[in-house]
């Protein structure tokens, strides 16, 4: 099979081609690594390419597939991993100077799982520093460029994972989503991104940003690939006590999913002020498609959306400032030469090792947790969280899924966001509620606005991944027919 054909296949198609002997894992990995070498100068989606390890692993997997020792749907398929997921023996920098030289002594649980299924890691992808950002511009390794729009950001924080899948430089990738970091870059780059229910995927080995919000998930070319990947990475893990037993999704059910009679809720506030008309039109066109296939669509009021951003940033920053206290220049990571006494090791390592956005969030977190402000901010946010849960519980009594845009805009121009952090935070309005109460949601490409991709967000009940993947697949099948 020639390289161009290989790069054009979805992960499941490539897995099938390998299984049927039309190509091999080694051939596929070589094709991708060569494409990365040639093309990624333009995008900077990878921060590390693991050529040697990948090719050795691919040979090993090819032998196991030939002997029948591995039979998974995605056996032999290359995968790109966001650089905040620990990979044993492979640099894991979180796109920060703080971890520029960190080589994890262990694998994240998701890495173990995908390797057991015979997938091959070809590289680590760029991201916002410590996953804090919505543009992949805060990376210590420099910004990633959106393959779908010159001079546009890929979104963030999993911008490298979305960009490499969009540019055919990986068939599939893993990202992490704390407030939209899988869905929003998937939307900006025109690919599919699944944020699973909190607890379905182990966070062991995911470098912690905000532990009650973080979740690992796939970024892929379509919903079927996301479903197959979800089945590989989900499950209870003793090393993450917030993880839980959950069912695999049925690929057959998703493939033949029928939306007839299904109820879709459209929250008015997801289409309010600040949402670009082109984004709104594209999403509503996708909703009209479901309606044409027999789904019942109803608009409803969800005023709590107005409090999404304050609640999210309080909780996220509070948890971040605790989680990031581990970076002290002692056990691992950056330490400047001129730090001599213990206090200066802490202060200089952190001051020089972290970028400004990370420092800002640590300071915000310390503020909302500090004496005198705790009740007015942090506790208030946890009360708001309770009301947010009530609002979604109530909505899901009536609707099977909730649909809205992923982001208010399409991909922004490079260099326009970082000077005004509040404006950047406001761009997370449609994605953060899902993280606050742990719901599953998927970003599905649904056309363009002014030539840039738009993403539709389908939100489900907890553990209802099969339904949102079914909705996504139904739409993608329909667009192929059209």
């Amino acid at each position, binding site marked *: 099979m020639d390289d161009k054909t290989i790069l054009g296949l979805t992960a499941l198609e490539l897995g099938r081609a390998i299984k049927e002997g039309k190509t091999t894992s080694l051939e596929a990995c070589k094709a991708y690594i060569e494409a990365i070498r040639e093309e990624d100068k333009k995008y900077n989606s990878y921060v590390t390419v693991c050529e040697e390890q990948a090719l050795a692993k691919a040979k090993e997997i090819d032998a196991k597939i030939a002997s029948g020792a591995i039979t998974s749907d995605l056996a032999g398929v290359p995968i790109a991993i966001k650089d905040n997921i620990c990979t044993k023996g492979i640099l894991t920098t979180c796109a920060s100077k703080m971890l520029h030289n960190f080589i994890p*002594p262990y694998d994240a649980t998701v890495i173990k799982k995908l390797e057991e299924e015979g997938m091959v890691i070809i590289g680590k992808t760029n991201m916002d520093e410590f996953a804090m950002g919505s543009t992949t511009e805060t990376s210590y390794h420099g910004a990633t460029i959106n393959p779908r729009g010159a001079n546009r950001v890929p979104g963030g924080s999993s911008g490298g994972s979305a960009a490499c899948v969009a540019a055919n430089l990986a068939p599939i990738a893993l990202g992490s989503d704390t407030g939209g970091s899988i869905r929003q870059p998937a939307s900006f780059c025109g690919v599919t991104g699944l944020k699973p229910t909190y607890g379905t995927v182990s966070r062991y080995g995911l470098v912690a940003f905000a532990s*009650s919000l973080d979740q690992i998930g796939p970024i892929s070319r379509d919903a079927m690939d996301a479903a197959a990947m979800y089945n590989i990475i989900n499950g209870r893990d003793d090393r993450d*006590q917030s993880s839980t037993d959950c069912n695999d999704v049925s690929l057959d059910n998703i493939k033949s999913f029928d939306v007839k009679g299904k109820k879709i809720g459209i929250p008015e506030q997801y289409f309010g002020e600040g949402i670009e008309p082109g984004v709104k039109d594209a999403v509503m066109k996708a909703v009209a498609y479901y309606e044409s296939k027999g789904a019942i669509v109803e608009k409803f009021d969800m005023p709590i959306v107005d409090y999404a951003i304050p609640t999210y940033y309080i909780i996220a920053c509070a948890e971040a400032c605790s989680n990031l206290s581990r970076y002290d220049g002692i*056990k*691992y990571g950056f330490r400047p030469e001129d730090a001599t006494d213990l206090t200066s090791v802490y202060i200089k390592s952190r001051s020089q090792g972290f970028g400004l956005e990370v*420092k*800002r969030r640590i300071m915000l977190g310390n503020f909302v947790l500090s004496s005198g402000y705790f009740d007015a901010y942090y506790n208030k946010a946890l009360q*708001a969280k309770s009301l947010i849960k009530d609002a979604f519980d109530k909505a899901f009594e009536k609707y099977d899924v909730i649909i809205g845009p992923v982001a208010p805009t399409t991909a922004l121009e490079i260099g326009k966001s970082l000077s005004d*952090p509040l404006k950047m935070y406001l761009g997370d309005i449609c994605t953060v509620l899902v993280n606050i109460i742990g719901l599953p949601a998927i970003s599905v490409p649904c056309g363009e606005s002014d030539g840039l991709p738009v993403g539709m967000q389908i939100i489900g009940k907890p553990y209802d991944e099969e339904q949102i993947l079914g909705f996504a697949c139904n739409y993608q099948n329909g667009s192929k027919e059209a």
Partner: protein
Amino acid sequence: MEITQDLVRYLEALGRIELSPEEEVKTQKDLADILGYIDKLGELDTAGVEPLSHAAGRTNITREDVVINGDMQEQVLSNAPETKDGTILVPRTFD
């Protein structure tokens, strides 16, 4: 609320961070903008609402305390900026 330079410096101290003078000026403005917006949350009526920590209501899940990730001393130490005789070296803490 007003974000003073003193408050910025207090937050730097809490986070063991030192900002440059330029970063400090920018941060003072950014924090004022962000907290100004976050203060909107004060309008939300939360009287009588219990704070919610885990959305699915899970608490205190434990497992047997057994070592499952031993035998990696060398790899762990290889990430430390300074080591000595199989331990991590830190600057003198007491005189």
